[in-house]
C-alpha cells in the first residue's frame, strides 16, 4: 500500500455514547494485520445474526467485503484483528485510528501479540534466518530484500502499544457470542463489560 501521509480527521469527536443505535447505519471498517484471519472467521460465525447486524451496520472496508472505495474511509468503528509486525501495518493502523471514532482490538493477537509475538524472545535476524534459510520448506529462498516488501519491526506489538484502543475483546479467536455481545452492547450505547461468563483467553 502506498504511504500517503495520514490525514487529520476534520470531523468533530463524537459525543458519548460513541455508537448510537438509531439510523443511519453505523459505519464500520475491519482490518487484518498479523493474525490468522481466525477472528474474522469467528465474526462470520455470527451466522444468521449477520442479517440482523447488517440492518444496523454497514461494513465499508474489510478483507471480507468487496471494498469499492479507493482509500480508507472515515468510519464510526474500526475493528482490528492481528498485531503490528511491520512498517506497513503500523501505517495502516494509525490511519484507521485517525479515521474511526472507536477502535476495537479483536482477538488475542491484537490484544496481547499472541502467536506473532512469540518471536519477540529472539532477535529479528535469528527469526529471519530460521524462517528463510534453515526451514526445510524455504531453503531454496533467501531472506526477502525487495524494497516493496514492508520492513519487519524487531518486535511484534499488540495494538495498545501503538495506538489508543477503546475496546479489547480477547480470545483466540473470541467466540461469536462474545463478539455479538460486545457489538450489541456498543450498538446500545454501552461499553461492553466482559468477564468470565462471556469471554475467554484461549
Amino acid at each position: 500500500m502506498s504511504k500517503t501521509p495520514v490525514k487529520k480527521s476534520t470531523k468533530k469527536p463524537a459525543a458519548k455514547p460513541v455508537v448510537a443505535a438509531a439510523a443511519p447505519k453505523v459505519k464500520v471498517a475491519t482490518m487484518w494485520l498479523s493474525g490468522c484471519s481466525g477472528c474474522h472467521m469467528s465474526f462470520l460465525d455470527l451466522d444468521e445474526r449477520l442479517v440482523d447486524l447488517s440492518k444496523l451496520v454497514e461494513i465499508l472496508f474489510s478483507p471480507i467485503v468487496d471494498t469499492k472505495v479507493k482509500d480508507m474511509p472515515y468510519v464510526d468503528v474500526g475493528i482490528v484483528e492481528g498485531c503490528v509486525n511491520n512498517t506497513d501495518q503500523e501505517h495502516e493502523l494509525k490511519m484507521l485510528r485517525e479515521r474511526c471514532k472507536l477502535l476495537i482490538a479483536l482477538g488475542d493477537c491484537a490484544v496481547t501479540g499472541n502467536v506473532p509475538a512469540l518471536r519477540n524472545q529472539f532477535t529479528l535476524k535469528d527469526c529471519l534466518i530460521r524462517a528463510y534459510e534453515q526451514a526445510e520448506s524455504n531453503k531454496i529462498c533467501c531472506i526477502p530484500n525487495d524494497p516493496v516488501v514492508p520492513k519487519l519491526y524487531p518486535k511484534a506489538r499488540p495494538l495498545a502499544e501503538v495506538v489508543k484502543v477503546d475496546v479489547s475483546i480477547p480470545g483466540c479467536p473470541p467466540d461469536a457470542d462474545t463478539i455479538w455481545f460486545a457489538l450489541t452492547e456498543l450498538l446500545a450505547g454501552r461499553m461492553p463489560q466482559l468477564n468470565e461468563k462471556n469471554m475467554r483467553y484461549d
Partner: protein
Amino acid sequence: MIAPKKITLTIDGKLCEGEAGQTILEIARTNGVVIPTLCYMKNLTPWGGCRLCIVEIEGSPKIVPSCTTPAQEGSKVNTKTDRLVGLRKATLELLFSERNHFCPMCQLNKGDCGLQHQGLAHGITGIRYPYLYPAMPVDVTAKYFGMDQNRCILCTRCVRTCDEQEGVHTLDVAKRGIKNQVVVDMNGTFGESTTCTQCGACVANCPTGTLFDKANAFRGQLVSCQQVLTTCTECSVGCGLKVFTKESRVVSVWGDPDSLVNKGHLCVKGRYQTWAEPRERIITPLIKGKPATWKEALAAIRKASDAAKKTERALLVAPRVTNETAQTIAKLAGKIGRIASYVGSNEAAFVAKPEYSANAMVKLPDADAIIIIGGQPSRDNGVVAATIRTTVRKRGAKLFIFLAPTTNLDQYANVSAPTPSQDESFWNDVAAKLAGVQRPAVVCGPDVTTADGKAVLARITKILADRSPLMVGVPVSANAMSLACSGIVPVENVGAWLAEKPVKFLHIVASDAPDGGARLLEDSAVAAQLKQAGCVVVQASYKSALTDAATVVLPAAIWCEKTGTVTNFEGRQLPVRSVLAVAGEAREDGTILESVFA
C-alpha cells in the same frame, strides 16, 4: 489442652467467627467470604507474594495481605472496595505483562489455570503495560515432568511444596528484581539434580502452566475429567489417590488431600510410575505365547492342574493383591495346594506376625527424634521419607539411621551408621544424643529382623526404655501383612520354597506389578524350578520375562481397574476403587483364581 480463644470480626459487613491466631483469609474462607488468591495454598506457609488477597481494615490507612495478617477481635475488614479491586487488576496486569502468559499456546489450557481464572474473574481484557517477552529457560530433563519458566508468576508454591511437603528443598528462587526466577538446586536442571525425588508435588501445586506432567501436557483440562478417590498399592503406606480420568484413560494422579495417611502428598511411584510409564499390557489370555480365549486357556490349565497331585501344585502370590483376593485364596486353599506370597529380602519374618503401627503417619510428625533401623524409606516408602524429612528439617527432630545404605536422608542425620559398631563408646554417644528426647519414634524396615538389626533394636529399646517410643514397622511390599493375616505364608527365598517338594503345576499371581513379576527370575533357582515345572500359569497385567516363560498367561486387571481393600502398615483398611473399565479381556485377580481353582 486449652481451646483457642474465639474471636469475632466483620468481613464485608458479615459477622465472621474464628480462632485467635487465624489469618483474615482463613476466617474469611471458613465463613464463605471469597478473597482471590494465587500464591496462597492450604497446608503451605503463607507467603504474601501475589498481593491478590489484599484487604482494608477500617481505621488503618494500610492495605494488608489477608493471608499473612492475623485477624483481630472486632476489626472491620473490607475485601471488595473499588480501590482494592483496582489494585488487584493492576497487579494482575503486571503479572500478565511480565512473561509469556498467552493462553492459546499453553499446555494448561481452559480452566485449570489460577492466573487465567483470576484474569477472567476480574474482567481483564487488555493490559495497560507493555509486554516484556523475556526469554526464560525451559527444563524438560526430568523423566515425568517439565518446567517452562516463561509461564511462572513466582508464587513460590512449588518452592514451599518442595521444602515443606517433600522436605528436599530442591527448588528455590534466585536472582533479583526482574530477573528473579525459580531454580533447581544451584541453578541446575531436574535431570541432573541429586536432591529432587521426582515426587511431582510441585506440579500438582503449580497454579499456572509452568510445571507440567509430560504425560498429559496439551491433552485437555483436568476440570473436565472425572475424579475418583482410590488407594495406591505400590507400597505398604497406602496413600490416598485422586485419579483424573477422561475417555477411558488416566489423565493425572494427585494425592487425596483428605487422606489421613498422606495428606495429599505422593511419591514418584504413586504419582507417576503406575500410569505415566510405557508398558506392554496383556489383554488376552496367552497359551505358549499365542492369544487364546478364556475357555481354551482355562481348559489347558485344568488339564495340567488335574494331572498334578495336590502336593505338586503351588500358588505364588505377589504381596500386592487386595484383601478380597487373599480371602478368595484362603477359601480355595483346600483345592490349590501349597500357597505362599513372595516378599522382599528379610521381609518374611518382618511381616509374618503383623504388628500394625496404628496412626503412625499422624503421630510421626510429633516425634522429636526419629530412629530408622534397617529400612530405606526414601527408596521404598517415599511418603514416609517425606514425613521424616519434614519432621527433622521443619520441626527440629533428631534423626538416627542404623543399618541402611546411605540415602538422601543421611545428610540430616545426627547419627548415620550403615554398619553399626558394637563398640560401647559408639552406643554411649548415641545414648547421649538421645538424652532429653521426649517423644522418640522408631521406624523399622525389613532388615531389623537380621541379627544385626535385632542387636540395634535391643540397644535402642534399652536406651529409650523409660520413654515408650512410638514403634513403626514399614514393610516394602504393599499388602504383605494382610496376606500373612489371611494365612498366606510370606516367603523370601522362593527357590528354596519351591524345591521343598516337587512342583508340577505352578500358578503365579504377579497381578499388576510394574515389572510383570520378572523380579522372581532374578533368582536362578526360581528360573530352574520354572523350567522343571510341567505347567507355569502367570496371571499378570504387563508383559515381562516371566510371562514370556509361562505356559499360560492370564490377563489381570491393573490398580485402577479393580475394587477391594488393602490394609496399610498402620492397619487401616483402605478402599481400592475401580477408576476405569477393565481393559480387553482382563479380569480381576480373585475372579481369575476362582475360575482356575473352583
